[in-house]
């Protein structure tokens, strides 16, 4: 969780250098939902995601250097430079891919779960999506299919109240719409505080265990908040789609700080230890950025290749 925060902050800081020449969607503020959910998975399990995927990639154990290099458009990037920030992949880590057409990776994840089920493999699939994605036709179709086939999948919704700059009230109605949709299909569903790492982990653990033991799919909706602008490194409270008050009320509920405090209060770790961990992580991230910057550009002859597999 802290690692995601540090990586995202580092991206935000370096973005201004104009060397990351692709859009980035940072998830600062939402780390608990991402880290907590992935902590419930095994390495062999699969994760898919959408446009805001750095946190999911890292939480699932994706290679940090390959991610940074990808954002920098380098040959050493996880997609050889062809994908960029919105197309991360790390097959060894079970991060099967992220793609930015909202909603589109949801059925793909269901298909992965379908294959897993057909082959009787001991793997669970988790797909991350936002509140906006729950308005796409393909989301509902996928929920119906997963329920029908009793697939080993967890639909992990991070509800951060916005789709770009559009608030919930211009997009959805119904008090518990998202979980109720899942339940209408006979699927177990829970809504909970997405900024509380322990709660996220517990619910995710339950859902993953259920899926693993043949109990079928679940949907989890975690309420959280994106701190930075929708796309890009800055803040955008000033442009008027949300209030500073709202922003600060969420900033006070910083999931990273909250968990740190909890760990320290419970005596699991001391403040100094925490600082050391943070320092090490920062060094790791800085090294990844250096690695990315120093990596070679992809060779021009890779441009027309990989259109077709053979």
């Amino acid at each position: 969780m802290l690692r995601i925060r540090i990586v995202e902050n580092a991206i935000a800081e370096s973005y201004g250098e104009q060397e990351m020449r692709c859009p980035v969607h940072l998830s600062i503020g939402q780390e608990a939902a991402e880290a907590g959910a992935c902590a419930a998975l095994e390495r062999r399990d699969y994760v898919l995601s959408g446009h805001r995927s750095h946190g999911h990639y890292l939480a699932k154990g994706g290679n940090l250097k390959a991610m940074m290099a990808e954002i920098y458009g380098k040959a050493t990037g996880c997609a050889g430079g062809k994908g960029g920030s919105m197309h991360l992949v790390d097959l060894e880590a079970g991060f099967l891919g992220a793609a930015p057409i909202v909603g589109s990776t949801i059925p793909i994840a269901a298909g992965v779960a379908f294959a897993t089920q057909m082959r009787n493999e001991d793997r669970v699939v988790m797909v991350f999506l936002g509140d906006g994605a729950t308005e796409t036709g393909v989301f509902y179709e996928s929920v119906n299919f997963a329920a029908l086939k009793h697939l080993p999948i967890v639909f992990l919704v991070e509800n951060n109240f916005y789709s770009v700059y559009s608030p919930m009230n211009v997009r959805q109605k119904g008090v518990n719409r998202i979980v109720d949709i899942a339940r209408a299909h006979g699927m177990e569903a829970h809504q909970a505080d997405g900024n509380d790492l322990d709660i996220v982990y517990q619910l995710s653990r339950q859902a993953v265990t259920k899926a693993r033991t043949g109990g079928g799919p679940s949907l989890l909706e975690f309420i959280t908040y994106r701190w930075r602008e929708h796309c890009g490194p800055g803040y955008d409270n000033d442009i008027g789609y949300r209030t500073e008050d709202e922003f600060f009320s969420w900033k006070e509920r910083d999931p990273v700080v909250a968990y740190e405090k909890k760990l320290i209060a419970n005596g699991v770790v001391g403040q100094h230890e925490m600082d050391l961990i943070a320092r090490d992580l920062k060094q790791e991230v800085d090294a990844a950025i250096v690695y990315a910057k120093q990596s070679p550009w992809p060779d021009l002859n890779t441009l027309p290749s990989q259109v077709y597999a053979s």
Partner: protein
Amino acid sequence: MNRQLKFSEAIREATDQAMGRDPSVYIVGLGVPDPKGIFGTTLGLLEKYGTTRVQDMPLSENALTGVALGSALVGMRPIITHQRVDFALVAMEQMVNQAAKWHYMFGGKAKVPMVVRMIIGRGWGQGPQHSQSLQAWFAHIPGLKVVMPTTAYDAKGLLAAAIEDDNPVIFIEHRWLHNISDDVPEEYYTVPLGKARIMCEGSDVTIIGTSYMALESLRAAEYLRDAEVSAEVIDLRTIRPWDVETVLASVRKTGRLVVTDTATTAFGVSAEISATVLEREFDSMKAAPVRIALPDYPCPTSPALSNDFYPRARHIVFEVKKMMGQELVADMLEDPLGQRLDVPDSSFKGPF
């Protein structure tokens, strides 16, 4: 070796044999296991391979295309069927943004071996929303392959090749071909994607046909023989990638080009072929190229209207004679037999 099989049976046999050879092949689609079995093309598969590998689905074509894709990412080889290409319009996003690009956009890390079967047709009052032919759309998208077999032999071999292929392949079947038979070997074989078939050799004009229009082109070539015109008919078989070299070689010989297609002419497949040939073989050309495909409006339902909607052999003959400077009989475009243009040969057992 001289076993006759219908096109639809050839499709079924290819599916059956591919499923028998490779446990990762499965088939899903609306009605796949139902008593009609997609015009007979999936009959018997359920009994043989069971409900896991032969599946019906919810009326959710978009999600199920994604599901097929997802399963392919982790090693399955799905075949997904649509009873009309029109229905697949809801699934364009998955086919075009996702399946076509997944291999490229992840730098070759993953692959998507899947086959999307779609059916096109002609007439029978299906009307504007059940009669489109959208191969040009798919062919415009890097990352997809597009196959349109004509003969039962090719249907079997190309479907087998499509299933073996590691990429998303759009497999388009013309309903009027389903009941046409030819020699189809019993053993498993593949016909390579991307290779055209010269259906008959000729020296005066090259006629390109695909799918059902290859048959009309062949018929036209017969009529033309009587008029002392030697037509070479090429069945493209694969639209993307299409066999440029075979076509260019033919045009170098004939100097004349007629391209037919089952779809709307404007911005269609025939434009690409014509443009490419003219770019590459301008100096070989003795006459302006001609395209023969559908007019620029949707297909109407009434037989009185759709009758005149579809081009047939005599339209091809007419254009070729014009191109050769031969005399044109004024009424040759009218059907002497008064046969309805929207009704297939007697070999066809409708309805669509």
